[in-house]
């Protein structure tokens, strides 16, 4: 039975290599694009070689001993059990190696912590399960969520190249500028991580932590939330596009234009159908992860939308809970604009099995702020 297990295991292995011979077997840290990440890469390589050297010496001796000093070849046991010189030497040599490792590491740490003289400051807020970006000097803000279709996750469609590492609105920064990240969280602890930048920093609710990077190469860099933050922890990627200065400026201008257009929408009178249609998209992007695409929720943590006391009760209460949050329900007033909030309220009250027939204009949401 054991032999058969081994054989079938071996066969499984061989077939594995046969079918995926073209696949990538990434073995090491990603190619760095910042000075800090390069230093980390070099530190890690130095560690690997030092550890490997010690490993070869120590276990070379052990396996030599295992081969030569065995009873079956007639080796007689010696009886020594102490050697002060040897013990002193093999305590001191590691100390020297450790000091040699600590020195470059200390220099890198000091550089990592220096967030002064930043060119651009961006406030990043983690929440379940999305990232909000707020460009403090530019008056640009937006939300970034996973854009991989659910059908790919549920294996109903072929998975795309950047499966789980793609977002609707990536963070955009100019190349060669020092970007300071002011990191916080709205609900639980998250962690913002881009491997190519050598940046991983926890986002802690109620506190602001700082970190920084300066990307030397334009490109798209992908990371993920690195601190367990609930059920969709694996589904809140981070994407940063590093652009040339001119492209970055064009992007900022486009963002501002889009925001102005959205604000204009708040003053217009909407019909219920228009709001419900717009609200479906807002709901599926922001709300369905907890309350369910059909409104069923995941009780007791995440209440159902269908038949909910809030979504079928007085509309003022509904607006209030969306703007200000309650318990683990986040406040949306800094995240969604008036039109989006009015739309999602209309959708929740007149779809998902509810039909109150009432809705609020974006202007009413604006007034309730």
């Amino acid at each position: 039975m054991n032999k058969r297990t081994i054989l079938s295991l071996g066969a499984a292995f061989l077939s594995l290599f046969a079918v995926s011979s073209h696949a990538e077997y990434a073995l090491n840290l990603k190619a760095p694009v910042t000075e800090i990440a390069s230093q980390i890469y070099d530190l890690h390589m130095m560690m690997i070689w030092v550890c490997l050297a010690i490993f070869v010496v120590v276990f070379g001796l052990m396996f030599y001993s295992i081969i030569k000093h065995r009873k079956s070849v007639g080796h007689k046991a010696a009886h020594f059990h102490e050697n002060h010189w040897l013990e002193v030497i093999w305590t001191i040599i590691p100390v020297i190696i450790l000091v040699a490792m600590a020195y470059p590491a200390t220099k890198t740490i000091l550089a990592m912590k220096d967030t002064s003289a930043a060119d651009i400051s961006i406030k990043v807020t983690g929440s379940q399960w999305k990232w909000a970006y707020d460009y403090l000097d530019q008056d640009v803000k937006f939300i970034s969520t996973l854009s991989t279709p659910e059908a790919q996750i549920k294996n109903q469609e072929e998975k795309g190249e950047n499966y789980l590492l793609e977002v609707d609105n990536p963070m955009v920064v100019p190349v060669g500028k020092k970007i300071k990240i002011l990191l916080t969280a709205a609900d639980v602890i998250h962690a913002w991580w881009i491997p190519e930048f050598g940046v991983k920093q926890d986002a802690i609710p109620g506190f602001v932590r700082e970190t920084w990077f300066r990307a030397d190469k334009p490109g798209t860099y992908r990371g993920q939330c690195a601190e367990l933050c609930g059920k969709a922890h694996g589904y809140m990627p981070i994407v940063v596009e590093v652009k040339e200065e001119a492209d970055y400026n064009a992007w900022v201008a486009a963002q501002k234009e889009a925001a102005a257009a959205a604000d204009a929408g708040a003053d217009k009178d909407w019909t219920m159908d228009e709001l419900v249609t717009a609200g479906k998209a807002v709901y599926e992007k922001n709300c369905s992860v907890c309350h369910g695409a059909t409104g069923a929720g995941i009780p007791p943590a995440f209440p159902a939308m269908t038949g909910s006391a809030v979504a079928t009760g007085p509309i003022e209460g509904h607006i209030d809970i969306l703007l200000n949050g309650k318990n683990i329900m986040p406040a949306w007033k800094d995240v969604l604009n008036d039109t989006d909030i009015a739309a999602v309220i209309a959708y929740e009250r007149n779809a998902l099995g509810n039909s109150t027939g009432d809705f609020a204009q974006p202007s009413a949401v604006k007034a309730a702020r």
Partner: protein
Amino acid sequence: MSTTTATHHDDHGHPTGIMRWVASTNHKDIGTLYLWFSFFMFLFAGALALGIRAELFQPGLQFVEPENFNRLTTLHGLIMIFGAIMPAFVGFANWMIPLMIGTSDLAFPRLNNMSFWLMVPAAILLIGSIFVPGGAIAGGWTMYPPLSVQNPSMSVDMSILALHILGVSSIVGSINIITTILNMRAPGMTLMKMPLFVWTWLITAFLLIASMPVLAGALTMLLTDRHFGTTFFDAAGGGDPVLWQHVFWFFGHPEVYIMILPAFGLISTIIPTFARKPLFGYASMVYATAAIALLSFVVWAHHMFTTGMPVAGQLFFMYSTMLISIPTGVKVFNWVATMWRGSMTFETPMLFSIAVVFLFTIGGFSGLVCAILPVDIQVQDTYYVVAHFHYVLFSGAAMSIMGAVYYWLPKWTGFMYDETLGKWHFWLTTIAFNVTFFPMHFTGLAGMPRRVPDYALQFAEFNMISSIGAFALGISQLLFLYIVIKCIKGGTKAEAKSWEGAEGLEWTVPSPAPFHTFETPPTVK
């Protein structure tokens, strides 16, 4: 103390049947209970891990919903640590410490019974929490708030209570072990003549007494934050979520050594036996163990390098963590020097011990890599860390437990185990373990976060290899169960001294060890 028990004892009956176990005050019976308990917990938590590996076999969601995936990882961690590894070492302490120091039993036999039977309700609470509304605890075994405060499920409270109970059990057990070792050694057995396993347990017991109350404090704060409106971990009320991490890891890092120091003791017992040569550097082994234990209280925040500590804190915890590799290295050098110019044979316990030295060192090196703060920034909370702690906890702690079970099975059962099957178990376990966990170094470095139910396509190949290894590893442990049962049922009769090169008082009593031993203490030269 041993003389008083010897005077009144004269083959009086002890309860039989189920009551033999429920009411037992005998260190051997309680040791057996601990070992079986931990073995079943090991199989149960291992089965949970297979659920994790089944889901991670391919990208996409196949078997386990994300929230259930988090429940699997959380319970796997909690049960393996508190239900499998720790009780197994207490089982060895129960069985072997009195035999090794030449005394008749532990100092407080009834407390010993209580220590074990507290484990059972705790296990029922932990496992039972799977079935309550809201599902099992899902925030990771580290239970970081605010996530663990946010989860409304009763299972979190059940787990908190379970850990409180296990803490009481550990503290009571530790007091028992310390009292026994310090007061009941056979005449002539000075502290520096004790077997190294006894030394490592003495130090471990002090670590438990110092660290478990800290966990209890943290858990109580978590409980009051959940239900009684306190805000220890909530910034909105003046608290700080990171406070939990500091207090938890002040317990958590000594806890890591609680799970590895007794393993060092086991290895230091087995290698000299099969090298037929005394342990090299006994005194430095004792000092190294004590040094590791002391250092373990000043390194906790290396688990928190990404929380954004001030630079002075980061540097302190990096340096102190690096220091731990010195006494640990001394131990590895001593084991190799013990083998050097010995007369070695390679029975199953020796094979496991050599594998532990080799594989634990890999885990030690990856630990040193994690200690270098800038590198840790890249690997923290990735599969690299998963690889690291399985190399120290599986191929360090669990495999030394397996080796030690083979080593003392003849003493416990009176029969030799099946050596051929034992070697099969060893090779299957070692190969499957490495197939499972070695690729995780690569996926971690390449950027795969831990605790995710699904992953980017670039990680697919290594995850598939890991999953195949995990199932082979899991199935191999059923062979272990079979070998142990077969040995209990019969086989070649074991001699009192079951191994040619074995030293120590436990080999002076018959095999199987009689129900009562050393009622009159032996004299140690």
